[in-house]
């Protein structure tokens, strides 16, 4: 019998069976209907630690690993530098192997960390409050839609077409099941920005709110002031790239109602899009309509500062069918990673990283724009990502660059699965792209002509 991670000796099993009053382990399963029972599973036999390590490592080695390349792929997930401290702290068993803090007396580590996380996200977004995490940028956007409809008791919702297409797909899935009419508003083709006139004309008495990207999917920095002016009376939600908020004005300054976003850039690794972190912040007056866990400060019986989950009456384990969301497990451990990251880089670092990314991106964009057959698609302000239109075959460009140990740009046709985007590719730049790398990329793009 293969029994990794299971402590029982034969003798102990016998003693335990005796206490229970049955003869053999099989007797504990005598209540299973025989006609459905199976005798074994058709899976390989268990393996030793080093066999498993070898086989799984082989799978890992079949992937192209971005550490060996310079990378310009973005589209919601970005490769930023992940400081060494993160894995050392995050892998501590006390964080990794704890459950949801239902017993606050022995969970103050998690609870205080969440409280600090909420504070950092509120500060970064300029919002009054934030929750302790959602799954990812896509579901956070969908939850913002549901929350807006709940508050307004209206079931028509707008989203600008230049929001991440996968977010819109998720919103669409959620909207359909709740009977919400989700209206996708085309963006301004010339600027890549939201079409505020079109938004305005699409607001009617049934409309609950609007979601826009900041920067939007094309990397373009929307003018939130104009969008807020165009959306009077409805709830405005903004989906952010948190790293951009080191240099871009905080959405909270524009009287935005809800801020969501993908938190992966805050110290998270790429993991094929799997290490995601849904950010969710809003005005305090909406706290009772907020989805997810919220941690608050209080005292214990001795008057000592402590932290506890608050407003649990919104949540499924208390409220069941009347909960604000069905969310139970969240992405707590990824929130820990973001908290460590933001603590390490600090007030100064977030600005420096933001500046570094955006300046390098502007440098690359300037170089590319000067070349024949490549045009910057949108003449609009952008953060660290921009769209290039080319008369070359985008797939061939990507293929050639790959041979030069460059990952990216991103083919927009691949993301949108739509011919309209055939000649468009998108470059994302972070602090990890050195000036030498960027110059090499520019030279290579020129050589392709």
């Amino acid at each position, binding site marked *: 019998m293969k029994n990794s991670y299971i402590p029982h000796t034969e003798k102990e099993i016998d003693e335990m069976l005796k206490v229970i009053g049955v003869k053999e382990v099989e007797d504990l399963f005598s209540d299973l209907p025989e006609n459905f029972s199976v005798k074994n599973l058709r899976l390989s036999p268990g393996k030793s630690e080093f066999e498993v390590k070898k086989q799984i490592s082989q799978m890992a080695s079949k992937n192209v690993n971005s550490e060996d390349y310079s990378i310009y792929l973005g589209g919601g997930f970005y490769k930023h530098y992940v400081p060494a401290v993160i894995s050392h702290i995050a892998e501590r068993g*006390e964080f990794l192997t704890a459950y949801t803090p239902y017993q606050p007396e022995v969970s103050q580590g998690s609870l205080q960390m969440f409280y*600090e996380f909420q504070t950092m996200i509120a500060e970064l977004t300029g919002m009054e409050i934030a929750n302790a995490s959602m799954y990812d940028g896509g579901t956070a956007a969908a939850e913002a839609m549901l929350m807006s409809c709940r508050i307004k008791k209206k079931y028509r919702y707008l989203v600008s077409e230049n929001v991440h297409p996968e977010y819109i797909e998720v919103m669409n899935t959620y909207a359909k099941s709740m009977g919400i009419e989700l209206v996708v508003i085309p963006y301004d083709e010339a600027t890549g920005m939201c079409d505020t006139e079109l938004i305005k004309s699409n607001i009617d008495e049934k409309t609950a709110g609007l979601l826009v990207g900041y920067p939007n999917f094309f990397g373009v920095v929307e003018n*939130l002031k104009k969008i807020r002016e165009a959306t009077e009376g409805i709830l405005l939600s903004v989906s952010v790239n948190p790293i951009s908020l080191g240099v871009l004005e905080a959405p909270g300054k524009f009287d935005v109602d809800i801020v969501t976003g993908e938190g992966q850039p805050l110290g998270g690794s790429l993991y094929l899009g799997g290490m995601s972190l849904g950010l969710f912040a809003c005005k305090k007056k909406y706290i009772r309509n907020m989805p997810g866990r919220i941690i608050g400060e209080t005292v214990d019986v001795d008057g000592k500062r402590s932290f506890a989950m608050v407003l649990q009456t919104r*949540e*499924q384990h208390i409220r069941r069918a009347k909960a604000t969301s*069905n969310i139970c*497990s969240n992405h707590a451990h990824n929130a820990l990673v973001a908290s*460590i990251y933001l603590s390490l880089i*600090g007030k100064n670092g977030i600005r420096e990283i933001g500046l570094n990314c955006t300046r390098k991106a502007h*440098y690359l964009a300037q170089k590319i724009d000067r070349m024949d057959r490549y045009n910057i698609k949108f003449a609009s302000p952008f953060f660290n990502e921009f769209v290039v239109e080319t008369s070359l075959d985008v797939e061939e460009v990507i293929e050639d660059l790959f041979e030069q140990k460059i990952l990216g740009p991103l083919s927009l046709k691949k993301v949108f699965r739509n011919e309209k985007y055939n000649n468009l590719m998108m470059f994302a730049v972070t602090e990890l792209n050195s000036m030498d790398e960027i110059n090499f990329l520019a030279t290579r793009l020129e050589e392709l002509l």
Partner: protein
Amino acid sequence: MKKDLKLIFEMSSEGRKDFYLPKESIPEFPLEEMFEEDMIRKEEANLPEVTELDVVRHFTNLSKLNFSVDNGFYPLGSCTMKYNPRLNETLSLLEGFKDVHPYQSDKNIQGALELMYKLQESLSEVSGMDYVTLQPAAGAHGEYTGLRLIKAYHEDRGDFERTKVIIPDSAHGTNPATAVMCGYKVVEIPSASDGTVDIDGLKKEIGTDVAAIMLTNPNTLGIFEKEIGTIASIAHEAGVLLYYDGANMNAIMGKIRPGDMGFDVMHFNLHKTFSTPHGMGGPGSGPVGVKERLLPYLPIPVIKKEDEKGKYSLEYNVPKSIGRVRTFFGNFNVMIKAMAYIMTMGGDGLRYASEMAVLNANYIRVKISEFLNVPYNSICKHEFVADSCQLKKNGIKTFDLAKGMLDNGVHPPTVYFPLIVHEALMFEPTESESKDTLDSFVAIVKGLVDQAETDPQSLKEAPVTTPVRRLDEAKATKELNVRYSFE
């Protein structure tokens, strides 16, 4: 140090920094040239200004305030707090997984697709389902995906009359919450006197207006629904699909499979059954298994194996798909850990894990029932529920017992759930724990029950040894101080 732990913001000193980017000569485009004036940040975010050592010390000190599986016994019912093997962590940190971008082309992520495909196949085998999607981020998200598939199935057949979902009163809270998010009305059916589904009650509610029945088997009392075959027939005859909440899967691996019992769709909790860590609440992973008739509606993309040489691809052309339920492919880092676990355990190992989980639960059930009421005291599966009503006469509630356990270095079971048992304590020891650990635990619980008789006041004051003592939760909710104030 017994002092209050400072908040990281309280350790901050203006102007301190300990983070440096490489020195490069980057063109210094002024912000005003890059952005509209309105869109430039004026006020910096109040992030901490601390050193790396401050950060390491702060989070290390925080971690020490937590109870975790690594610290001690954690018999939290319905949560399956088994050991989280460290091999799995090591493998999940491999650069070939960690540093792969979701928009790399299919041919550059073959190893990742292979791992996901093999995990799908393994989960299909464990569950008796025909196909598994790994996209859902957590158990509740899996429930959502599953019910959406059911909805798509009915509607594709032109059946729009099914507006209700039947859920037993012993179900997890996520079940009704999910049904509502899918636009369904919840019909709660009371349990029979032995805690199982009341077949007559079910028959009364079933009809052409019902889309699905959500069950977990064994149920939240740890009791196996013997009549599952009958329930499945009743459901299917009325055109109703059967949903399996996989939270309690740790009881039945290699013994009986939801797919064989008649379930049409289910979710797994990789963070329960398949040993991936709970990480203070997540990330989990909630793959969904389906029977063939639900295949056309799966979320996109679907992973396909193109040929026997093992080339994998992503299929986006699924015309009847419910769409995406999240971005990209799911919590890939969690999937790596679950795959490593399944490979380490093998088919026999998974079966043995369930056997020992059930042995452990029954062992402490019998021992605890000697001094605490166990309302449904028959052979249970991986968990069971006790009721502390007998202590009420001394003014002691389950809540107090739980706090007493904290002083004894063990985590309490799940309390006040399921709702059908008033002063519920729901124990799930898992297969990871030895007889010695279980014996010490039973002795602790016995000691507390005795204490409730002899010295109830001291129990009402517990815990006294923990980093903080009982909290003023009313103050927390009344004042709603949910972020640090810098003023």
